[in-house]
């Protein structure tokens, strides 16, 4: 019997229409855990590095994590992995909700899709019964609407459905996969799903998932529940509200948006909107939010309430979380939250990423104002800000006219448009739209995370360590007092010594060595979460979370029976981190790609930045191009990667990196 996992994957070949239930190798669980770890291994083994994301060779994986379906609170993430049409690199977008638990209760750790369906289909998984069903009648239907239609059609109200909307069907690069209150939005995973001809996946599972050492496991769960409760009454002082508590940003709960509206450079802007948050706006937005919000809601087995049901007169209900509340209104310069909720409803039905889409639309508006896009490109577009955004949204998801170019996101659109449009795509890392922030002084920790993060999204890399120093020593001492999560006592020293000004302040403090340590810790927690299927909101994202490097090994041991300790878990993290890097290196990723947006910080330090990157690479056991060396790979049982690198000339026997591979260059 397998513990923690089911030990079976569902393999679906869409070209041939075949379905297989395949037993997995328990040895891989010991090496890579599950979720992202084993997904990366499958991508490495099975998808040729030259495969186009929109080709039958690309595969699309929906994975549960190793702790999913155990009683551990928050272990509910679905890890969606494929090659991104936008970055051309590994995409591992995730969603919470109820999909992964339902899949594992149906008896599967992963669904692995390959090939392409000749017609639009949906997949119906009911325990051992799996069908590929025609979905032509669902073509063009909304992503939320589709979930309801399928449940009705199947007459199974408890089925959980993940679906794409029009954007995914039309292979829009910012297409999401929507499921209940959650969505896998980043990096175009919805576009790959659409390319494969999958409109939706419906699952219902009623099987058991086993725990190896039940009594021990429940004791750990009780401790975590107790800690979550105690953190509710004890927010971290001295940081902004969304960083003080647990969960992902509590945007559905909070109504005070002074900080976010005035400090982000929303849409495609380069400047803040100071004094935006007037008393009238405050009153108006608060009233809108409280009347639209029907209920705060959770994902499976999690007490946090990060999402909400949103219902406005005259339109169908949908669910929202995180920042989509602000992104559309702010990007469109429409100072109404009602507009934000309404356009987000349409965008959710279309199935698009709430960050990249408004940014791309704002980018188009800027290009029009700069005369780079013309009246002809905008023929038929209303002149008011609201109307213009709805018009752009409709064009993009349908890939009509200028929408067809914009549908590839700001980087690729700028390349196609030319005429200086490149300068307007100023907010990308590795071709992907980033959180719209422009800051003054370079922060060495954030510099490294922006450069080297392979999830392409800062919120999926940061966490654990405060974003800025506390002004007084008393506050710092207070903070470190119950900081049990630190992997090593040295992190407390880093924080105590970190000053707002002077010698021990940004950008030279934390030093490159310290910054590397801090980044490594933050990365470690995200990689472990993504393999266990744990929500970052209870672990890697907030300060002082309930899960950490000291209790995770015990959770894994008790759930699976695998003998685990901190050192072993750290090795698994390094193995997975290096494998993800290796998959991307084989796709062409090199040092030259690892840079933040040019104007992300006003004050830049070229020499220090090179030093930071060198120090980080060296710490990781990578060469100066950011490629894991043969020695590093061998230490982590990744000999097969080293051999492949040598065969392809990515590494030489001398371990020096040769000139950047030709295949990599052609795409840039």
């Amino acid at each position, binding site marked *: 019997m397998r513990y923690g996992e089911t030990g079976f994957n569902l393999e679906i070949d869409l070209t041939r229409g075949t379905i297989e239930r395949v037993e997995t190798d328990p040895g891989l669980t010991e090496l890579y855990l599950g979720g992202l770890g084993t997904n990366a291994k499958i991508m490495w083994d099975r998808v040729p590095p030259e495969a186009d994301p929109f080709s039958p060779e690309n595969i699309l994986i929906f994975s549960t994590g190793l702790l999913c379906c155990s*009683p551990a609170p928050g272990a509910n993430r679905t890890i969606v992995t494929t090659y991104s049409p936008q970055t051309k690199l590994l995409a591992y977008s995730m969603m919470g909700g109820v999909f992964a638990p339902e899949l594992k209760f149906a008896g599967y750790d992963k669904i692995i899709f390959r090939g392409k369906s000749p017609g639009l289909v949906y997949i119906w998984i009911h325990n051992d019964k799996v069908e590929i069903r025609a979905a032509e009648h669902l073509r063009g239907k909304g992503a939320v609407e589709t979930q309801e239609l399928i449940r009705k059609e199947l007459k199974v109200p408890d089925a959980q459905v993940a679906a794409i909307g029009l954007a995914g069907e039309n292979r829009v690069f910012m297409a999401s996969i929507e499921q209940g209150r959650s969505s896998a939005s980043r990096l175009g995973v919805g576009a790959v799903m659409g390319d494969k001809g999958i409109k939706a996946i419906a699952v219902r599972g009623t099987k*058991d998932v*086993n*725990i190896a050492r039940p009594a021990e496991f429940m004791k750990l769960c009780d401790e975590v529940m107790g800690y979550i409760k105690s953190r509710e009454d004890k927010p971290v002082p001295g940081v902004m509200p969304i960083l003080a508590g647990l969960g992902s940003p509590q945007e559905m709960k909070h109504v005070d948006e002074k900080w976010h509206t005035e400090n982000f450079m929303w849409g495609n802007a380069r400047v803040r909107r100071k004094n935006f948050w007037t008393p009238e706006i405050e009153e108006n937005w608060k009233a809108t939010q409280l009347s639209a919000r029907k209920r705060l809601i959770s994902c*499976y087995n999690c*007490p946090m309430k990060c999402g909400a049901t949103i219902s406005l007169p005259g339109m169908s*209900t949908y669910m929202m979380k995180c920042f989509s509340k602000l992104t559309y209104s702010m990007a469109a310069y429409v100072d109404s939250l009602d507009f934000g909720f309404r356009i987000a409803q349409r965008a959710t039905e279309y199935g698009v990423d709430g960050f990249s889409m408004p940014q791309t639309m704002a980018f188009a508006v800027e290009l029009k104002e700069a005369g780079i896009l013309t009246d002809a490109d905008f023929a038929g577009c209303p002149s008011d800000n609201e109307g213009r955004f709805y018009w752009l949204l409709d064009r993009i998801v349908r890939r009509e006219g200028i929408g067809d170019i914009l549908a590839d996101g700001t980087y690729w659109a700028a390349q196609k448009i030319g005429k200086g449009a490149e300068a307007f795509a100023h907010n990308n890392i590795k071709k992907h739209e980033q959180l719209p922030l422009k800051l003054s002084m370079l922060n060495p920790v954030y510099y490294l995370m922006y450069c080297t993060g392979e999830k392409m999204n800062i919120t999926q890399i940061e966490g654990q360590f405060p974003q800025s120093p506390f002004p007084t020593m008393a506050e710092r001492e207070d903070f470190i007092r119950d900081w049990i999560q630190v992997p090593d006592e040295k992190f407390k020293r880093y924080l105590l010594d970190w000053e707002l000004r002077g010698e021990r302040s940004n950008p030279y403090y934390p030093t490159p060595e310290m910054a590397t340590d801090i980044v490594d810790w933050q990365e470690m927690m995200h990689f472990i979460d993504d393999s266990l299927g744990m929500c970052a909101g209870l672990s890697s994202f907030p300060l002082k979370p309930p899960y950490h490097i000291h209790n995770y090994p015990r959770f894994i041991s008790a759930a699976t029976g695998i003998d685990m300790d901190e050192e072993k878990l750290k090795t698994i993290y390094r193995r997975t981190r290096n494998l993800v890097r290796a998959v991307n290196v084989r796709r062409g990723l090199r040092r030259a790609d690892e840079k933040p947006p040019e104007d992300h910080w006003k004050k830049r330090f070229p020499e220090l930045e090179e030093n930071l990157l060198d120090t980080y690479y060296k710490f990781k056991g990578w060469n100066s191009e950011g490629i894991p060396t043969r020695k590093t790979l061998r230490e982590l049982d990744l000999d097969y990667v080293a051999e492949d690198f040598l065969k392809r000339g990515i590494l030489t026997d001398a371990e020096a990196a040769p000139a950047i591979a030709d295949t990599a260059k052609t795409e840039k």
Partner: protein
Amino acid sequence: MGEKKKKTIKTIKIDLDKCNGCRACEVICSAFHANPKYSSNNPARSRIRMIREPIRDIYVPVYAGEQAKAECMGRDRYAIGGKEYDECVFCRASCPSRDLFREPDSGLPLKCDMCEGEIEPLCVKWCITGALTCEEREEDAAEEVNMADVGAGLESLIAKYGLEKIADAVARISRKG
């Protein structure tokens, strides 16, 4: 007879407005009732189930009660606070009309036992949003049996089936002990 008997009534209060639909109640219930305890998880075996329709804002945790051998002839539909709750939503029965509260493999009925042996039902302990709370109170136990009622019931059965058949049935039931 003499002194009056007391009994303890445990009541779980369900506040639908506070429910966030996380199903932690189902998780802990199915784990607690696994054999060995906590060795597996499967909400389909839970004795509390969430009736959950997010788009219509329906969130109703329901506890497994007695088994109903047959479906009801008539059904109810409740309209409360502008929302319409489908038939059976508030019903606690393990019933042929639905797959709630039955073991997924054997089809045997499930019933909430308030987590015997625990300080409070574990669904309540795990519901930190406060949708489920437990109250205890003592009540006088109605122990006395009214023989006139028993007689009236038997008379009507005898009238329907005849004295002989009823006597046979009583004898048969007594033998089973």
